[in-house]
Every structure is written in structure tokens, then in C-alpha cells.
């Protein structure tokens, strides 16, 4: 059962890219121990919304509360330090660095030698290898290989493995099953459930409403930068939710007026 007090609370959030109004007065709560599916058309603003939560974008106005406290400064470093891990849709890996270096980017383990902080390569290599093997990367890929040579699925596995390895309080997954095979998708979905059962907040972005309906406690639908639906999965069927997406929120508006 989710807590009564939200872990992340978004209030009247607006975000403009220049003149383009990408997020329109969005308010939504997320609780610990909850798996929330975030769905909606291409360009609806899903990625933009979670990029505010993980500190990449600063909202134009509106508030975000984390653990009851107003977030004043937005930077990925701060979000990560607060325990928010994100599997980004289009960024997150530097092609020119090895898997091990990417794995620990921004949180490199060090050993002090004569007071100089040197990278702890043994740990970086060891942990990264363990995780990529657990995520099905074959022996021909080593943790010392540059990400540039990885396939789309291998990259995705590295990103997911990294987020799960450093999981803390919140795991945000932006279309995590992209590039993955059927078996790997099931694995990711299982992981999402496990994380929720461990008491974490999981925000899961996808286009597959039927798939996520089976996993999620709640579904939030976005359209044109607005939140148009926010319903618990035992109140609304996948078919009904799909209809809302297809109608682009018009059904909801009619019901409200």
C-alpha cells in the first residue's frame, strides 16, 4: 500500500522551450512503493516531465516537492544524490568511454594514493562486469570496451543495469524496453515490479498501455503537455485508458464540462 504522503509532488508545473509550451500546468503525486505508468502520444511531454524530476530541466514555474521539501535547485547531480536513478530515453551513455567508466560516471569510486584520489579500476571493472553479465551481455563484450561498439540492446542493458545497481528511492524508466528482445522485456518488467515491492517509487514510461496496465498501480496519461488522466489500474481497464489516449483527452473534457 502506498504511503499517504507523496514522495514526489508536482504542483502547477509549466515549462517552456522558447515559445513552445511543453508542460501545461501539470500537477501529479507519486508515492513510495508505487509503480506508475506514464503514457501518451509521441511528443506529449512524458520525457520532459521526468526530466524535470531528475533535474535535467528547470521548470519555468510551478513547484516540485521531494519528500515534502520544496526543490529549489535543479541539477541531475542533486537528484541522483537524493536517490533518483533514471534510465533516460536518448542520453546517458558516452560513446567514447568504456562501459566501466560510463557505469560510474559522476560517482567514481576512488582509492587514495599519497592523498591523490585515483580511480578504483578493480572495483569499477568488477561491478560493471557482474552487472552486464546479469543483464545478458555475452562474453565478447568486456567492461573495458567502449560503448561506441555496443548494439542498441546492449546499450539499453547497460543503462538498466546501472540504474538497478544504484537504485535508491526512485527509479524512473523512460521507454526502458526499447531495443530489447521479448525475453529481455519480460526481465525488465519483472525488475520494475521487484523494485516497487522493495518499496521504491517506479515511474515507467511506455507506449504499450496493455503491458504497463498489468504492472502498474496507477496510470497517468499525458497529451499535448497536459495531464489528461490519472487513474488507478483497478478503477480503469486498459481498454478504457486506450480509448482516452485515442480520443486525446476529449472524452475526459466532455465528462468534466
Amino acid at each position, binding site marked *: 500500500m502506498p504511503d499517504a504522503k507523496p514522495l514526489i509532488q508536482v504542483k502547477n508545473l509549466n515549462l517552456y522551450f522558447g515559445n513552445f509550451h511543453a508542460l501545461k500546468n501539470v500537477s501529479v503525486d507519486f508515492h513510495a512503493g508505487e509503480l506508475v505508468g506514464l503514457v501518451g502520444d509521441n511528443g506529449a511531454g512524458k520525457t520532459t516531465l521526468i526530466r524535470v524530476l531528475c533535474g535535467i530541466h528547470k521548470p519555468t514555474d510551478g513547484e516540485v516537492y521531494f519528500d515534502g521539501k520544496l526543490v529549489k535547485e535543479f541539477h541531475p547531480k542533486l537528484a541522483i544524490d537524493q536517490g533518483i536513478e533514471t534510465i533516460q530515453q536518448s*542520453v546517458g551513455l558516452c560513446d567514447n568511454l568504456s562501459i566501466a567508466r560510463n557505469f560510474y*560516471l559522476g560517482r567514481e569510486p576512488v582509492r587514495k594514493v599519497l592523498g591523490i584520489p585515483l580511480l578504483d579500476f578493480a572495483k569499477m571493472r568488477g561491478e560493471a562486469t557482474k552487472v552486464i553479465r546479469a543483464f545478458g551481455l555475452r562474453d565478447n563484450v568486456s567492461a573495458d570496451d567502449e560503448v561506441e561498439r555496443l548494439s542498441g540492446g546492449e546499450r539499453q542493458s547497460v543503462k538498466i543495469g546501472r540504474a538497478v545497481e544504484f537504485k535508491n528511492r526512485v527509479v524512473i524508466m523512460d521507454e526502458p524496453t526499447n531495443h530489447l528482445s521479448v525475453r529481455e522485456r519480460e526481465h525488465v518488467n519483472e525488475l520494475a515490479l521487484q523494485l516497487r515491492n522493495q518499496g521504491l517509487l517506479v515511474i515507467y514510461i511506455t507506449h504499450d498501455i496493455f503491458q504497463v496496465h498489468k504492472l502498474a498501480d496507477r496510470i497517468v496519461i499525458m497529451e499535448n503537455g497536459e495531464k489528461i488522466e490519472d487513474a488507478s489500474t483497478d478503477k480503469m481497464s486498459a481498454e478504457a485508458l486506450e480509448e482516452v489516449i485515442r480520443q486525446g483527452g476529449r472524452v475526459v473534457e466532455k465528462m468534466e464540462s
Partner: protein
Amino acid sequence: MSLAALKPIIRKHSEIGIFLVAVFLVLFFVATSEGRWNNAYNISTILQVTATLGLMTLGVALVIGTGEIDISVGSTFGMAALIYLFLAVRVDPAMAAFAAVAAGAAIGAFNGLLVTRTGTPSLIVTLGSLMIFRGLAIALTSGFAFSVPYKDRGALSYFILGGDNLFRIGTFPGVNTGFLWLIAGLVILSIALKLMPFGNHLLAAGGSAASAHSRGVRVDRVKLRAFIICGVLAGLAGVLEAGKLGSADGSMGRMMELQATASCVLGGCLLAGGRISLVGALMGTFVLSSIQSYLVVRAIPPQWFIVLLGLIVVLAALGDRKLRQWALKR
């Protein structure tokens, strides 16, 4: 060993190209200069030039690693040389060197802040400071040279800052102490780049700023630091050159920004950022200094140097691309 076995080595080490160029050129110079190029005196001269240009090149390579560029280093070098010479006789050489290097750091910070705060391309920002500080140097010296007479350069500080005759053995006239500064710079920066979080952040910022940012790397700070280090090294190089020559005028360091950038490109540093080789860049510096001295010993007019430099940069870049393309094919 078959040719194909070399592929992974070339793929991993971008400095292989410049290494081959260096070997070829050295053989060519030895074969065609009748001993006028390959003698102890000339080699020592080449190493002296390599020392100061090399320090500047290391800094430029770091900035290139972040995906930016710094073409103001020639002016920074000149300003530092003038500040050093002006203060050395009036105050104290060590204090003068400190002030000159601090000025280099300030110019680096000026570039870095403008680039990161305003988002103006670094090529434009540093082109601006190249002209500003060159203009200042010429205006402040108003055609005169600053100098410290040789007889006044007795203090130990003068020796440490570019003094001559280090490692003088037999006919080898020794090297300038600048060479030790270069080795120290190379070792320290290599450790920082390869073995410390600093290097991981720097290369990540240059490889993909958006990805680095998303993982919590403060990309702007990383870039600012690289610009400051670059300014410090250009300033230090200016001090060492001034210390060696004992005099400088407003044109000191002119065109050196081009040579430093060319050294980096020759040495396998990717201008797009994220991939640099410090050793390769220094090899590039060595090649440029060698060509310069070859022209001198063959009595070829020095104006041909810049023509040759251009040709070699284009040819080496082409050759290097071909080599890497071949190596990347599986």
C-alpha cells in the same frame, strides 16, 4: 605479426599516426641534411622549442578534450612573458613568475566563463581574447622590448625558470629547464586524465555533454577548469620562454596558437572532443619543431614553414583518417 593484428592497436591508440609521421620525418631529415639536422646541438634546440610549445599544447589538448577550443594561447603566452620580464627585475623573479601564471589563469577563466555562461562558441570567444591580449601586449610595450640582461640572471629562480645547460654532456649542449617542466606537466596531466575522476568527467563532457550532464557531471565547471589549466600552462610556457631568452616584445608568441592546435590535431586529438592523446599531441609538437629546424639548417626561408605546416596538417589528417578507417573495419 600480420597487418590485421595491428588493427586493434591502431583503434585504441590514436597517436600511432603521428608516431609513424615522426619516424618517417626523422629518417628523411637524417638522410637529407648531411648531419646538419641530426647533431647534438640541433637536437637540443629542437627540444627547447618543444618544451615551451609543448606545455601550451598540453593545455590546448585538454580544452579540445572537452569539445571546445582555445586559440587565445599565443596571446596569453606573450602577456605572461611580458609580465614576467617586467616584474622580475623590479620585484623578484619567483613572484614575477607567479604573477604571470596567475594572469594566464585569469585569461583562461575569462574564456571559460564567457563560453560556459553565455553559450558563445569557444572559437569566437578565444578569437576575441587572442586579439584583445595581443593588442594590449603591443600597446603596452609600444614597440619596445622588455629584457633582463644576462649578467643579472644569476639567481636560482632564473635557472629554474628556463635556465640553460641542464644535462650538458660532452658535445650535447644540454636542455633548457623548460624541458623538465614539460615532463612534469605531461606526467601530472596524464595521471589526472587517465586515472582520476577529473579525466573521466572531462572526456565525458567532450564525448556527450548531454549524457555527462544527465549523470550529474557539472559540465560547465569541467570546461571552466580546462580553460583555466590551459591558461596556466600557456602562461608558464611564456615565463619559461622569457626566462630562456631574457627579452620579449609585443609580438612574443605570435602564431603559436596555430602550432599548438596543429600539434593536437596531428597527435590524434579529435576536434569534436572526447578523444585526446597527450603523448600524441607532444609528438605533434616535436614534429613541428623538427620541421622548423630542418628548414633552418637547410637554409630554406622561414616563411615556407607556415606553408609546410598547413600542408602537413592537411596530409596528416587525411592519412590518419584513412588509417583509422582501415583499423575500424572488422
